[in-house]
């Protein structure tokens, strides 16, 4: 048992915090909410130069050979800074899927470019029929033709599709809409004829898209992984994505707590600092309990994923807990910040709006509790 970070990990976390504090101020975060593209190419380039995008890729594919836990430390800081942009989409959803399922030529073609920041990817799984989260509910059809596949259907909530060079499209090649079997993954050039995206307007003002596939032709060599067996890949990618999202949420929640603590130590009412009131102290203690429990279970899940240990229950427990925890933390944060925190120009809403988006991403607490129920034999 060891909860220590290595010296390298500590340095990584600290330098990421300092870098983002300088390069990703809240003015940029707010500007990017209104910006059509939603991120700063200048900052993107700097992050790539720091090696962040390849941190969890093997060196043979242009990465620096770290593990999932290393990436989580970065994501925690990104959540803290509300970093806008397609980092998560490109690295976690794109990179990890290719790492998991890609052929050697596909890995050689894509991963170094993702690691250098020159190519942006995302993953399209949710559909209009997904009225309750379920990554295996797939109706978008991919029909095999002579030397290509024809994709027809609609994907929703595809993050950063508007800036992605390639989308990994989760498609059905056989079987019933809810069957895990018969799902296949395709690398789709975003410039393909018949592919149309449109930005949705969301609570977090992040860039999630509707993507229409109208008879989109995908070359046969762009099949990612084994035909009909994409469900297994998707399951693994969803686990990593859920844990990566947990790290982002923990970083955001910690910032909210830190902000509240500073405020409680300077704001006076009734002639006293509000931080001396037990009601405020207990709110803060509850926030800390929510966050620390979430942090340790997230690290534990990452440790198990890195070792390839079976951890369906633990990953599900983590995303379930952290989704609820972040929601509780921002709720308590608003109580402490009160009127001032309700103002659009305050930082508080940046976090409470993102807490909702993160809660919903890759399944909320209710979805993961269904998985846990199965794991405990119900």
């Amino acid at each position, binding site marked *: *048992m*060891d*909860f*220590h*970070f290595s010296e390298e*990990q500590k340095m990584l976390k600290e330098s990421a915090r300092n870098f983002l504090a300088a390069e990703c101020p809240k003015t940029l975060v707010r500007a990017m909410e209104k910006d059509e593209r939603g991120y700063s190419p200048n900052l993107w380039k700097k992050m790539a130069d720091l090696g962040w995008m390849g941190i969890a890729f093997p060196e043979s594919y242009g990465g620096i050979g770290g593990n999932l*836990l290393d990436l989580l430390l970065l994501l925690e800081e990104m959540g803290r800074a509300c970093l806008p942009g397609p980092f998560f989409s490109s690295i976690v959803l794109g990179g990890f899927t290719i790492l998991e399922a890609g052929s050697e030529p596909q890995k050689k073609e894509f991963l170094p470019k993702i690691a250098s920041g020159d190519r942006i990817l995302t993953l399209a799984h949710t559909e209009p029929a997904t009225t309750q989260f379920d990554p295996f509910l797939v109706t978008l059809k991919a029909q095999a033709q002579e030397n290509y596949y024809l994709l027809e259907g609609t994907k929703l909530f595809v993050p950063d599709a508007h800036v992605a060079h390639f989308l990994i499209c989760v498609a059905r090649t056989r079987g019933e809409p809810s069957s895990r079997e018969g799902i296949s993954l395709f690398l789709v050039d975003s410039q393909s004829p018949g592919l149309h995206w449109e930005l949705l307007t969301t609570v977090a003002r992040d860039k999630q898209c509707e993507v229409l596939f109208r008879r989109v032709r995908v070359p046969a060599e762009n099949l990612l992984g084994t035909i009909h067996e994409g469900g297994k890949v998707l399951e693994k990618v969803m686990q990593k994505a859920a844990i990566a999202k947990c790290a982002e949420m923990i970083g955001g929640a910690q910032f909210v*707590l830190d902000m509240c*603590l500073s405020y*409680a*130590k300077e704001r006076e009412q009734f002639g*006293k*600092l509000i*931080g*001396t*009131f*037990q009601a*405020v*102290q*207990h709110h*803060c*203690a*509850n926030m*800390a*309990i929510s966050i*620390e*429990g*979430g942090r*340790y*279970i997230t*690290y*534990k899940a990452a*440790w*198990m994923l890195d070792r390839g240990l079976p951890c369906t*229950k*633990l990953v*599900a*427990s*983590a995303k*379930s*807990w952290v989704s609820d925890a972040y929601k509780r933390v921002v709720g308590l944060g608003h109580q402490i910040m009160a009127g001032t925190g309700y103002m659009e120009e305050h930082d508080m809403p940046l976090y409470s709006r993102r807490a909702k988006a993160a809660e919903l991403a890759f399944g909320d607490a*209710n979805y*993961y*509790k*269904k998985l*846990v*129920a199965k*794991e*405990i*034999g*119900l």
Partner: protein
Amino acid sequence: MDFGYTREEEEFRERLRAFLDRELTEEIARQNWEDKGVGPEAREFSRKLAANGFLGMSWPKEYGGQGLSPMYDFILLDELGKRWGAHVPLDVGYTMVGHTILRRGSDELKREFLTKIIRGEIEFCLGYTEPNAGSDLASMKMRAVEEGDFYIINGQKTFNTEAHYAEYHWLAARTDFNPHIPKHRGISLFIVDMNSPGITVRPLITMSGEQTNEVFYENVRVPKSRMVGDKNKGFYYMMEAIDSERNHVFTPCRLNPILNDLIGYVKETMFNGRPLAEDPKIQDQLAQMAVELEVAQVFAEHSRWMESNEIPMTYEPEMTKVFISELEQRLVDVGMQILGSFSQLEEDSKWVPLRGRIEWYFLHSFMTTIGAGTSEIGRNVIAQRGLGLPRG
């Protein structure tokens, strides 16, 4: 970062499991922890635990221990907990006061008591709380006055749970009566033989049927050699020990059998021709409990890691304590909801489900967020010591 156990720790766990599956009956488990209080069976079990090498792994070799990591004791607590055992039978000596004797006691006290503790032969009873010193423990009034080679002690303690079977009282009493010093600076710790003349123990019966006690001291003579550490430092020693005590008492595994019993129950119990296990609300409730048990586990793992590596703990075990004790209440509430009308039946009633264990835990769970410090004081500690918020 590493969430695994060493091979030696895993081997210890395997041996322990085989032993407990054979030796730990429900009767002994209940004497360990629950309503019955330690009796002959639990005493016998305690000696067997020691004789088979399961006690004392983390204790110094010179007192009969193995000199290994505290992680072994935590493994022991986890495996007991999974079997309704919750802690070792003679718990106060082994997991609480023994550590303070080791840290602060004279060589004489260490020689006299540690080996017996590690052999599972003697038990202590905490003598802290008084009728007017609960959350505000430092305001205790029990008086210990020097007279030759003795202290003469007078006063009253309350909620001293093991007093009716422990051999020794681990007593905190005031030894400096200057009203102008902070009240926590005038307290000392003593080991008092419970057979000393002048001690009277009166039972207090809790709502869940457990016996705790009031203890009265009338001119009780305690040798000076039985003072633990320095005079007037007792409160510091109590606070210094509290984090480790929380780590040893509030173990998540002790909640596992409740959840497991409920899972078994919903699979076997029918409603309208379908097992309760198919009810989505019940699935969700039990899954939520399973999630929170995983969180409880990582809280405990984190605090234990700190203790095992002698990393100063400030609020972390408090967080573990608050979380696990409140989880116990949530879990029992879920259980009572699932059992419906049958949840109210007591152990000896016709039609009682799950041997009445859930109903007993329901009554017991009101204590868990109070005992060893309320959740509210716990949150004050987290906020002030952990988060740096100012005192009111």
